[in-house]
């Protein structure tokens, strides 16, 4: 073996209409953690998919373990000793955890699957990565973070020479992230190299040895992590100065209460209970907490997607009963969901259709669409969001995450809401587009709207919110003013009920 366990030289990949990768180089030393960074759409995932046999590169060479390889399928990649933890998990929900792990390589006895051996192997594996999960429990019953840890264990179980981790911490809490880092160091000591993709700068600087940065499908460079700072990385990622991650505040939040939530409870005992808070006119109320704090469930209930059994909600001083999304919409509420792809965008429909869907009735007379009015509204709403799209007919699935999010905001603005609930508004969006979303939020506030923002990113929560409400295990543990809020306070409240 030479200096590197993996060399990807001059990789090129062309999709219809776009050059996704243009001469990208990645060289990974054995036993190192190599971070791969870049804005969304920079080509990180595409590069990794070429390595893992999901795509086939159009040009360049892959040298793995000293030999030139062509990797056509994921199975070939796994057999070579390359495994991957995907950004999006697709567990088989109705099968046990262990079957999810050993799928395709079950321990056998004759023609039958050897269940006992499988349980034993799984337990050994979990012990190795210090994970306390029953191998026989159904995958669908695990929390998102536990699933992620199982996925990591699965990658470990291949005894690979390289493990690709694509945003492994997006659903992990800080503690679990620490746990993951412990596993990574353990793997490193065995000589396994990690390719680590993440947007979280602090993490990258902490765990990685070398950092390769990509921009717009091109190779920017590789540096030892020691020589980098957050600002330097952002600089090289976006190719411009990004000293301020948040736009300056140029408004003063009001004091008038627009939404009063009083002691609302979910019918599920483990979901949100006795939640009360006020939302003031023209403020951004941030909601912080760990994964599982039931923040999403609570706002979905306010939006009529889940049941509320007790407590009351008042809007502009008048009680209002939310039975369906249409009620919430009629009362001027809008919700951008956490899972953009699952419950936000219509990938196979046009931008126009995506934009007007929530306000469809305003652009129709007796159920018949008024094409001109519809097109004009969609176009203007997207122009005000500065959505980048060749035309209103473009399919939604061809837009980047940031632009899709802008279309979703454009969609809800057409319903003329005065309260916008944004659940993780910048998840999976690159740095440049994040800033644009923040600017849009400030613009909305200046127009007299109020915003509830759920965020799991501490800097975003502290940088954007006028007040921060923290939840833990379904209850509100505190509401902090902008001055009181700092990461220590928020973390303390977010873990208030934990051991």
């Amino acid at each position, binding site marked *: 073996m030479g200096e590197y366990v993996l060399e990807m030289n001059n990789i090129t990949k062309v999709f219809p209409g776009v050059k996704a990768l243009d001469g990208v180089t990645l060289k990974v030393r054995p036993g190192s953690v190599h971070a791969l960074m870049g804005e969304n759409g920079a080509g990180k995932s595409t590069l990794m998919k070429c390595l893992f046999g999901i795509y086939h590169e159009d040009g360049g060479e892959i040298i793995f373990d000293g030999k030139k390889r062509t990797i056509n399928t994921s199975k070939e990649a796994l057999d070579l000793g390359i495994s991957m933890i995907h950004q999006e998990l697709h567990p088989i929900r109705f099968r046990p955890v262990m079957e999810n792990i050993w799928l395709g390589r079950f321990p056998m006895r004759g023609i039958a699957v050897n269940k006992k051996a499988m349980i034993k192997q799984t337990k050994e594996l979990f012990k190795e990565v210090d994970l306390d999960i029953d191998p026989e429990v159904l995958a669908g019953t695990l929390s998102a973070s536990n699933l992620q840890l199982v996925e990591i264990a699965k990658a470990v179980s291949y005894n690979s020479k390289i493990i690709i981790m694509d945003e492994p911490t997006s659903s992990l809490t800080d503690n679990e992230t620490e746990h993951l880092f412990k596993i990574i160091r353990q793997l490193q000591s065995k000589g396994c190299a990690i390719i680590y993709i993440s947007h979280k700068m602090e993490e990258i600087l902490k765990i990685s040895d070398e950092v390769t940065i990509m921009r717009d499908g091109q190779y920017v460079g590789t540096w030892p992590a020691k020589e980098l700072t957050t600002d330097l990385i952002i600089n090289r990622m976006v190719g411009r100065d990004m000293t301020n991650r948040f736009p300056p505040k140029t408004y003063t939040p009001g004091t008038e209460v627009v939404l009063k939530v009083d002691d609302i409870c979910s019918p599920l005992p483990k979901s949100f209970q006795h939640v009360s808070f006020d939302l003031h006119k023209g403020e951004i109320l941030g909601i912080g907490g760990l994964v599982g704090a039931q923040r999403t469930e609570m706002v979905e209930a306010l939006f009529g997607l889940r049941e509320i059994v007790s407590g009351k909600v008042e809007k502009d001083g008048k009680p209002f009963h939310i039975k369906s999304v249409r009620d919430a919409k009629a009362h001027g509420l809008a919700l951008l969901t956490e899972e953009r792809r699952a419950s936000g965008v219509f*990938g196979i*429909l046009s931008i126009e259709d995506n934009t007007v869907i929530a306000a*469809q009735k305003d652009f129709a007379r007796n159920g018949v669409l008024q094409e001109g009015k519809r097109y004009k509204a969609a176009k203007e709403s997207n122009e005000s969001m500065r959505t980048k799209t060749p035309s209103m007919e473009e399919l939604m699935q061809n837009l980047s995450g940031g632009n899709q999010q802008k279309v979703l905001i454009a969609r809800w603005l057409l319903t003329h809401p005065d309260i916008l609930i944004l659940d993780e508004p910048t998840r999976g969006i690159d740095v440049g587009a994040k800033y644009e979303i923040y600017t849009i939020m400030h613009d909305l506030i200046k127009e007299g709207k109020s915003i509830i923002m759920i965020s799991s990113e501490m800097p975003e929560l502290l940088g954007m919110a006028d007040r921060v409400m923290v939840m833990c295990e379904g209850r509100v543990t505190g509401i902090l003013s902008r001055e009181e809020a700092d990461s220590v306070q928020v973390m303390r409240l977010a873990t208030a009920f934990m051991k």
Partner: protein
Amino acid sequence: MQEGKTVQRRSFALAFVGTGAVLAVLGILLHFILDATKTFDLPWFILGIGLAAVLYGVFQLTKGTRLTPTIAFSGKTAKRFLTNNAIMLALMVLIVVICFLEPRFMQIQVLLDILTQSSTRLIIALGICFALLIAGTDLSAGRMVGLAAVISTSMLQTATYANRFYPDLPQIPVFIPIIAAIAACMLFGALNGFLVAKYDMHPFIATLAVQVMIYGACSLYFDLPPNNSQPIGGVRADFTALGQTRLFQIGSFNGISILIPIAVLFTVAIWFVLNKTVFGKNVYAIGGNREAAVVSGVNVFKTILFIFILASFMYGVGGVLEAARTAGATNNYGNGYETDAIASCVVGGVSLNGGIGTVGGIVSGVLIFTVIQYGLQFIGISPMWQQIIKGVIIAVAVAIDMSKYKRK
């Protein structure tokens, strides 16, 4: 990768107008030159193709502002054209082959026969497409056709017919039994929709259950004394006129079946519903991403309910027309029509994953099946082979269609 030529859309369109005009003139000339006993109506078809090309060219010229100004020609675009239109091209090859084997195929009358045979199938396919667009299906279509046929004919027999379903029923206006038949279908359609929307049942199971119920109910009705499961006959002429009238019957010309304009009317109506109404947009939205539709405040319950009611209305219309065309009915009418309708939709590019499908595609899907059936019969291929060929076409069409969406 990027080699190949680019052509201005304007000259591309003009080329079509030019060739089309030449073909049209050629058609008219050939009409006077060719021996009509050997080439039959070939000149008229050439004229028709020419006019279609002119229309396409004019459309490109006037609507061109919304399209890209240039068109690229390369191996890649050619390949894309081939996969996108594979079925249509195969169909054209088949037609040319049949025409060579049996020149009598080149008659206007043959074309009209094919269109007539497609009419009721098209109406049923247009009903079922809504269920397919929300990634569902509707297995009750065929049985609803039978139900509508039995109910409508049972009340529309001539006074002198010996075996009357209702011996003492006076001559009631034709529209009353038709409305009763369609309303009965819509009742079951509402049940379909309710089961799917309210209990979140998979449409496959919900409509299967309703299908069985309809057959039972229809058989019970059919078995009522004095009919006792006798095939219904002696249907009144003012009713059969709905399916058997021939328009423009002049001289040797056999006329155009009234079913063709009826089918055109319903096609236009469904096209309008799908493309120009809130309901149609909501259907595509639910098919495209149901969760997102719920979050956007689309009334999913109402939309799904309406989908199945509208579909059953179309099946009812189809059943009434079938009964009128054949001047009779039994409780086994329409059996299996849903599979033909689903196959036509799928061959016409409707995705079973929901959200994708156009009325134009469905029309061509239905036509393809009729042309194949009619054409193969025309050149004397055994019906058993026809079945095999039909199956192969479904499989190949869907395989080609799927390859479009496959990521490379």
